[in-house]
């Protein structure tokens, strides 16, 4: 359990924080996630990676928490941690910082699009694993990722960066 916790806590925390937008809430939720894992250890069938199982539980808990507290606002410290403090995309482009503009646009995507982008790029989840975590068909995973990337290109274009795609 200790090894499991040490190995996965940071990624699970970041995944949950993206949903709930509050560090204290995210920390409470990951405690609950790992407590559930401890309680349900004998139910883990090993058909998927442990990290996929963890992220699935974490997602369910984060969404449940958001439904319980829909009006909870971000505290200032957390907002600072989540929102990129860099310039908006146009200003970033003027400063020729394409990476900053891209990060800003990534944060402007819808929650669904951000989720699939983060699961694929940061959590390195396969199509099948994203489908398992989010609870959607594999074909929808590919479509959602495609439209997330397309929307990202549109946002960048609006900010003055034409990537020539799509």
């Amino acid at each position: 359990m200790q090894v499991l916790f040490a190995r996965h806590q940071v990624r699970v925390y970041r995944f949950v924080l993206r949903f709930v937008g509050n560090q204290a809430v995210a920390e409470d939720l990951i405690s609950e996630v790992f407590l559930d894992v401890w309680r349900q250890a004998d139910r883990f069938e090993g058909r998927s990676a442990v990290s996929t199982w963890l992220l699935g539980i974490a997602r369910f808990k984060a969404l449940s928490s958001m439904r319980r507290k829909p009006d909870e606002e971000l505290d200032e410290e957390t907002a600072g941690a989540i929102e990129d403090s860099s310039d908006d995309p146009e200003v970033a482009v003027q400063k020729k910082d394409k990476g900053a503009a891209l990060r800003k646009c990534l944060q402007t995507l819808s929650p669904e699009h951000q989720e699939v982008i983060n699961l694929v790029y940061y959590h390195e989840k396969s199509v099948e694993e994203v489908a398992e975590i989010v609870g959607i068909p594999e074909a929808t995973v590919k479509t959602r990722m495609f439209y997330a990337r397309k929307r990202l290109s549109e946002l960048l274009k609006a900010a003055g960066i034409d990537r020539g795609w799509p």
Partner: protein
Amino acid sequence: MSKTNQTMSADDIEALLPWYATGTLNRDEADQVEAALAANPALARRLDLVREEMTEAILLNEALGVPSARVMENLFKAIDKERKIARAPARRGFGAWLADLLTPRAVALAAAAAVIIIMLQAGVITTLVLQDRGDAGSSFETASVPAATRGVETGSFALVRFTPQANIADISRFLDSKDAVIVDGPHPGGMYRVRVARTNVGKDELEGLVREFQSSNLVSMAVPTE
């Protein structure tokens, strides 16, 4: 995945580029994407866009920080509490085994052992890579130890993450072919600091070297660094 062992359309292949970049496709799909990339320079350019997105998504997530120690304290307090409640009726199966392991002393010992194992694993991997190079100028033991970087303090550097499929021998040959050497790592996210040139080259040249790394199917991500 549904398209395995079938010939995929151009649209199917394009949709798989993000997973190709992260190294999470199966061998058959990866082969088909690689063949399409070799035949279509425009598709290769779009893979560069995917890698840009991946780099920035990783940076964005890394900026979120880490949970405080309070999380672990709360978790193991809660586990301890539940164990006490459940002590009378014995648990069965894997749950019982796991619960028995979670005495405070066992937890402390396990934590220490885990840290040692993870550090040893990182050290062994890096040592294997460095030893396999057979480079007389890189006679250090592990890249995560400051003394290990003797002789490679100067030059130009990049942060590199290798694909999960890349094995030690392939990585070693690849680094040899580029006259590159791992000087530090692994860092969170599996990133290694790699010296890509022996001298401090200009920004354009460094970006060119990094692009060469990115074009390798052994590398899932490469970015210039100080």
